[in-house]
């Protein structure tokens, strides 16, 4: 495996460069996935049947907490990657750890939010609006959940194997993924919650 030391560690081998480009293309596909979900949501959001409307169930407090937590986690993973570039393994692991904890908080609040909806009589089966809402949020939430485990595995690998071209590559790709989820959330926050509450 040829290692090019002129490049940052995560780009240092041919395979690493392929991995990063491949992941960017994958994110392109993910953009289409969420774009489709958003389209479905916007088409169906006012088709509430006999169930509640967006304005009736959305509450600002949990959503603000979720937004704050996820935005912060995007910042901390940025710090993590920066630490990785400087070769500071412990700092990197710490920042990644904080990121995942924030991710966990986000999931906790989201689960709480879903429970609230359920108690207010807005279940997955209630109407086209609730189905679309919960599928969109659920897909994002599933991505965060998956990301949590993925990130955990990467932290374990970095701790056990140190900062190698492979672990650095994985950590960097994971940070791309995490930032992407954050961007998706910004769209969810603005166009689903804020628009729905207005």
């Amino acid at each position, binding site marked *: *495996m040829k290692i090019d030391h002129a490049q940052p560690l995560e780009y240092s081998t041919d395979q690493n*460069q*392929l991995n990063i*480009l*491949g992941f960017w*293309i*994958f994110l*392109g*596909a*993910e953009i*289409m*996935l969420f774009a*489709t*979900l958003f389209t*479905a949501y916007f*088409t*169906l959001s006012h*088709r*509430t*049947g*006999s*169930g509640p409307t967006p304005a009736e169930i959305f509450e600002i407090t949990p959503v603000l907490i979720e937004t704050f937590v996820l935005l912060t986690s995007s910042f901390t993973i940025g710090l993590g990657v920066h630490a990785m570039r400087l070769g500071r393994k412990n700092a990197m692991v710490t920042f990644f750890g904080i990121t995942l904890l924030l991710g966990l908080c986000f999931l906790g609040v989201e689960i709480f939010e879903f429970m609230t909806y359920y108690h207010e009589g807005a279940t*997955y*089966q*209630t*109407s*086209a*609006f*609730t*189905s*679309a809402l919960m*599928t969109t949020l659920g*897909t994002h939430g599933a991505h965060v959940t998956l990301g949590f*485990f*993925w990130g955990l*595995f*990467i932290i*374990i*690998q970095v701790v056990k194997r140190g900062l190698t071209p*492979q672990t650095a590559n*994985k950590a960097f790709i994971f940070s791309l993924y995490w930032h992407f989820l954050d961007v998706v959330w910004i769209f969810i926050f603005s166009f689903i919650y804020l628009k729905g509450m207005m």
Partner: protein
Amino acid sequence: MEFFQRFAIPHPSPAIYASMVAIALVSIGIVVGLTYFKKWGYLWREWLTTVDHKKIGIMYLLSALLMLFRGGADAIMMRAQLATPEAKLLDAQHYNEIFTTHGVVMILFMAMPFIFAFMNLIVPLQIGARDVAFPRLNALSFWLFFVGAMLFNISFVIGGSPDAGWTSYFPLAGNDFSTSVGTNYYMLAIQISGIGSLMTGINFCTTILKMRAPGMTLMKMPMFTWSAFIANVIVVFAFPVLTVALIMGTADRLFGANFFTTSNGGMDMLWANFFWVWGHPEVYILILPAFGLYSEIISTFSGRNLYGYKSMVWSMILISLLSFLVWTHHFFTMGQGALTNSIFSITTMAIAVPTGVKIFNWLFTMWKGKIRFTTPMLYSVGFIPLFTIGGVTGVMLAMSAADYQYHNTMFLVAHFHNTIIPGVVFAMLAGLTYYWPKFFGFMLNEKIGKTTFWFIAVGFVLAFFPMYITGLDGQARRMYTYSESTGFGPLNMVSFFGGALMAIAFLLIVYNIWYSFKNSPRDIGSDPWDARSLEWATHTPVPEYNFARLPQISSSQAFWDSKKNGHVLFKGEIEDIHMPNNSGVPFVMSCIFFVAGFSFVFALWVPAVIALIGVFVCMTLRSFEQDHGYHIHAKEVKETEAKYGEVLNNEDRSRATSRV
């Protein structure tokens, strides 16, 4: 007992029972055969765990041929049922199941793997790479496709086939009107193989962007590679739409969601929109690589470079963009008004322009050439006029006001078969004949090959041209029968006759493979067709590392330049070659996907959850795995090359004999 009742077929018939027995016997036969000949180890080591793009390509090819027969059997049953008025061969329910599975199998489990087969076989060779960017992901793509196809096919004997059409429009496909598990199979089987397709798209985009041989700029890529690249870009952007649509359809059917229902705010038209936002680009995913194959074949057998290379590339790019802007033409009659229809009518017709450019470029490639009528060339020459007819009827259908009359009729059926069969199927058969020697080391018999072509071409014309007429006479598609007074009888009989000729042609293909395997000479050299692009610059059959030294490129037909203009392809010393390790994980993971899919179909939640956990365990293992591949040492490579060298000495002699 009650538990098992769900697996029973809701509408059994002797034919289905017979196929159950046949499937059971064949399966037992395979197991016994493998055990008797002690081939389990070979199967596992060489095929089930392989990550070699050539072997994966061959597996795609075999699966595609297998599915071609499944879909073809469906087709011939439909034509037989419609051959005479009020025929009793099939009842409505069976007919509905058969045209549904025919459509799904032919598009998703025949045409898709066929083009993926050629992408896998050819693209790395054409760009001078040793494999694709992510070989193991490639294996996973194949196995996901394969288990998806198998899951779809067992619906036939366990639980009942889907019966709402390959478009599966809601609310017909919803729980209220499709009560059997058939549509669950549709949703999950396509979902699983669709994930595989998406990963193939990512894999090949990366491969083509990053792994080209030194000197090969984008505008020096062979045309098939260009077409594969653009098709894969479309895959990446179109398949996620299908993924979401299928998730929603599954949620409606299994979890009581209300996306496409007729109550609680559901919107049935949303499915149709999503389906075709994916579905229309999908047909270009199929046709563009076919165009690429024709470009290679026509150029080779005209003895000329491809005319208008740049306009070929730009027209494909334009087609790929337009393909996302035309989906509404599949339902002009949904009542979206004159303005919307006008916009989509114009975008649809606009596709005719770049397509026309391609047709003229192929014609001009033959102009001043030296045309050899080999089997692949016959398919390509037959393709041009027949596909032109298919294309211009497409323009007719694009005139939305007139489409109110064509829509849902046999005219439409004739049109899309007229593009898909000469467009895609001819290309696949041409490619099969053209590339067969590269991967199997012997040529397919030309005489049988040409006979096959005539059967299939004449059969095609007889089977589908009458449908244009019956369509204009008011024969709607998907009718399982019609009364004698309609007067559709004679023309449908002609169609059946044409279908029978095509069926004979497909049997001839199998016969040809068997016959050639027995009789064709093996010392054909590496370039039996006197071809032009890089895939012919390596040995036949291709060594596992593809090229001992990476080729140096300076034009889009580097190999031709090396033969005629003294271009030196291979420079420098042979070095150690890095290769990826085989892995059983893709196969195992796909099997778990199969279990998950099957459990979801029957709403068996416990095994479904266990299987999903199994999938995540596989992903976890992969995350922790350290696999740096292995090296073939320079010495070994030289020995292998030397073996081919002996063959090479015979090459000049054999080239003279095998060239047509």
